[in-house]
């Protein structure tokens, strides 16, 4: 409960923050992933660079085909955002299921994905949506697809002196339904399995576009693109969804710990993948 010594600096600008990072310094936003690790002395950064008050990292806005969510946007803001509820409700629905009100009031989307906890709620949502992660480093900005951002357990494509500036999610068209379901690990409330799905139906009721991914099941989000590929151009009745998940869900190395075996996590992925797709379909129809 008592972290090792560290220096604290509040960055006045993004450039200053980037210049301070690297060599043992970590960026501090909401503190809901990093500080617990520090209190357990599992993380002992020499310096914390507070980026929580940089205006260029804040806020939710429509940009072209997408919605830009600043890296320091709190989960509670995402959950309550009218823009996201209208344009990309999968993200706001999942954000509302993170932790508890205190966590949602402090935790940020950037901090969440930088931490890359495999049981966290947002990573699979971003993969299912085909979101982009905008980064800024000494050499300037770059953009990484969410599917490439999550590299391994607690490991991302973020460089040591880069900062996540924003996440960009697509604006989903009409006749799209979304659904995020999760089975909570009973102690932490993190996902033993979280299933994120969206689906757009064409006028004949066939699947025009869809996305699916799972949290909690493997070291990085499990991308269900082969599952949804099997549904494109078909009427997504329950049997079709069940068959697509059963035939195309595959996880090479499922996570296994005291809370659930890999075998059980896969079973949850199968059941909840199916249920999330079915509910997304029902919402697309309504």
């Amino acid at each position: 409960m008592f972290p090792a010594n560290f220096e604290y600096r509040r960055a006045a600008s993004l450039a200053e923050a980037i210049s301070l990072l690297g060599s043992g310094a970590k960026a501090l936003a909401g503190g809901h992933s990093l500080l617990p690790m520090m209190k357990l002395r599992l993380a002992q950064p020499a310096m914390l660079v507070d980026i929580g008050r940089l205006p260029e990292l804040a806020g939710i806005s429509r940009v072209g085909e997408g919605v830009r969510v600043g890296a320091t946007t709190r989960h509670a803001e995402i959950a309550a955002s009218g823009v996201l509820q209208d344009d990309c409700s999968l993200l706001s629905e999942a954000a509302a299921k993170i932790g508890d009100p205190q966590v949602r009031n402090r935790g940020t989307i950037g901090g969440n994905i930088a931490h890359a906890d495999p049981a966290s709620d947002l990573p699979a949502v971003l993969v299912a949506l085909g979101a982009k992660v905008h980064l800024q480093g000494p050499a300037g900005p770059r953009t990484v697809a969410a599917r490439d951002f999550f590299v391994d357990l607690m490991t991302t494509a973020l460089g040591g002196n880069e900062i996540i500036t924003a996440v960009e999610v697509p604006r989903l068209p009409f006749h799209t339904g979304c659904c995020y379901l999760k089975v909570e690990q009973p102690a932490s409330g993190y996902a033993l399995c979280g299933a994120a799905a969206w689906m757009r139906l064409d006028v004949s009721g066939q699947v025009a576009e869809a996305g699916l991914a799972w949290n909690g099941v493997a070291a990085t989000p499990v991308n269900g693109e082969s599952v949804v590929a099997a549904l494109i151009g078909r009427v997504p009745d329950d049997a079709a969804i069940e068959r697509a998940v059963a035939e195309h869900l595959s996880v090479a190395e499922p996570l296994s710990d005291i809370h659930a075996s890999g075998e059980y996590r896969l079973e949850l992925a199968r059941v909840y993948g199916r249920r999330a797709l079915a509910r997304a379909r029902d919402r697309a129809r309504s």
Partner: protein
Amino acid sequence: MANVIGTSVLRREDSALITGKGKYTDDLQPARMTWAGIVRSPYAHARIRSIDTSKARAHPGVVAVFTGKDIVDSGVPGVIPTAWLLPDMKTPTHRVMAIDTVRYVGEAVAVVVAEDRYTARDAAELVEVDYQPLAVTVDPEKATEAGAPQLYEDVPNNVSFDWQWGDKSKTDEAFAGAAHKVAIRLRNNRLIPHAIEPRATLAEYDDAKGELTLTMTTQNPHVHRLLITLASLGIPEHKLRVKAPEVGGGFGSKIHHYADEAITGWCALQVKRPVKWTATRTEANLTDAHGRDHVTLAELALDAGGKVLGLRVHTWAAMGAYLCTFAPAVPTILYATLLSGQYDIPAIHARVLGVFTNTAPVDAYRGAGRPEATFVVERLMDRGALELGLDPAELRRRNFIAADRFPFQTAAGLLYDSGNYAPALEKALAMVGYDELRREQARRVPGARAGREKLLGVGLSSYIEACGLAPSQVAGALGAQAGLWESAKVRVHPTGVITVYTGSSGHGQGHETTFAQIVAGRLGVDMDKVEIVHGDTSQIQFGMGTYGSRSAAVGGSAIVATLDKIIAKGKKIAAHLLEAAEEDIDFADGAFKVKGVPGKERALGDVVLQSYLAHNLPADVEPGMEMTTFYNPSNFVFPFGTHVAVVEIDPETGEIELLRYVAVDDVGNVINPMIVDGQIHGGIAQGVGQALWEQAVYDEAGQLLTGEMLDYALPKAHNLVSYETARTVTPCPHNPLGVKGVGEAGAIASPAAVINAVVDALSPYGIQHIDMPATSEKIWRAIHSA
């Protein structure tokens, strides 16, 4: 004035506590205070080859660093004692700080005293201990098997005690002739207490007077003082003061004498400055005495008509690495004596092995032995009902001890003073709508088997507990090294305000409210004129403290007996003043009245003032108005009731949802219904937690995998339901208030109710038992292997 006893007076404690004004041990900051950082073993079993403290000593801000050898060299006794002795029990020495061997992760090996708590933690990491790891055993049954690693050379098979209870041959005979026999092998899961305030100690040494004051998280200051005096620090009892400021819950975990308070106190003697230690949550989880951890083979014999003929159990009970303060009593006296439940069972036998394992010590945790017994009995009743094809409620009805048979001597050794079990069961069934639930359950089965609907399960738990610990002679005969009476001193001041000094030591129960209600009700005075003082050895006569649902039944009775002495003395004075015979004086509505002569009376306050003035007292009456009682109960008290849990299970994933929870409890007369309901609610939450989520997990190397709340699943509000509670009232016949106890009832009843509901839901699959915690994966596996 209306009698306040029996009314839901708001807790007078709460205003200060919820506005942050309450002072807990960690809030206290005396001048020149230092912090202790305790170095703990990362190994579950290891020899200590050497300890190098030089780097820690050299760290800026460090005041001193000590090892176990320093404590021994100082000449103090240095031992953590066991205060309950069973026949032929092996009690290895438990040192305040390990010297040559550590036996669980978290055992103290050194201590750093530093200027602040951060430095103390930093420097603790600089203490270098060279360990030689040894083989580890963590399972109480496996630890007794041939070839298991041994914790002590002189404790073969790690068995501290092999204890038997009841009549073995009679029980074996009952089984031999029985039409039906059922057996369950079950695990009562190891729990970590999680009081919201972790343990803490502030030690202040007055070098001039030679007095040590320990302000600490304790449920029993005098017991702590006695044990510290006798076994760990050797400071004369009158030179040691133990104070409990506000204490944020205990659930039993703050009864026991731990190494940490002895280490902190000893450090204060060395550095001659105040020293504070507050456990982090990780330290608390590693070192607080854990609860339960039984492996049990339980059997029930029944005749063809469903009458229970006999019950026997064989239990392996983990003691952890050392025998904690009252640990030997928990899986023996507090367990086997309850194996008759609410039933007339003619033959009962229990064999209990107390087993050392490389884990944190195990001791009393809310319910202490009685939840384990209730779980055995109530699981067996459901298993028996399944075997005979009877409804679980019906099998219980057929075996209840009839209301006209009290006092009832059970085959498990207790004399139940009173009880009336069937009405509580019937009330609970009516509240839950039992018959309708059974119809709905049957309706759902086909759909559930097809994966379209959820399974429904209904579980009963008709529990009994023996609390109000305890008649001292009985406790002594069973091994207690202490009496279990309680004390009270009542001081009525000259102005009529009243101070009660109670030996009970509340830590969240609402003693200051409940006890004030007793005084106000009995003396007919306003509650605001009554102050309750507890938790300080320098203010209070010896007291035994708060645990075992004893405070109202024993502590409250001590207060009543003392109030009766006050009234008796007042009558003498009043009779004298009123020129009447003492036997003609009644005390009612706060006044002493001459019988049959309206208006001829003296108010209590007037009589009290006269007692202090002493200008006109009877010749045989001393001045003043202060009385003391040491009340020794004549028996335990026996609360009972029936709880009903209703659960829904997703047959595809095994996920459980608690739908409803009905609790009908009989705790005798009720002093404050709101506080009683609060105790029931909290107890249910803890028991549901045990049934569905909580589990302390040690891996094969003895590492605690559930040391944080991230991994140890406490019940959360959104996992629970709004409880439906009601009461029946069967007053205790042997104490003046007719009260029983309520602190543990919920935690005793609820694990069995929930697991019975889960197994009931799974009955279409032929599943006969699910171990706690009933995780969704366990249920999924059971369904898919059925």
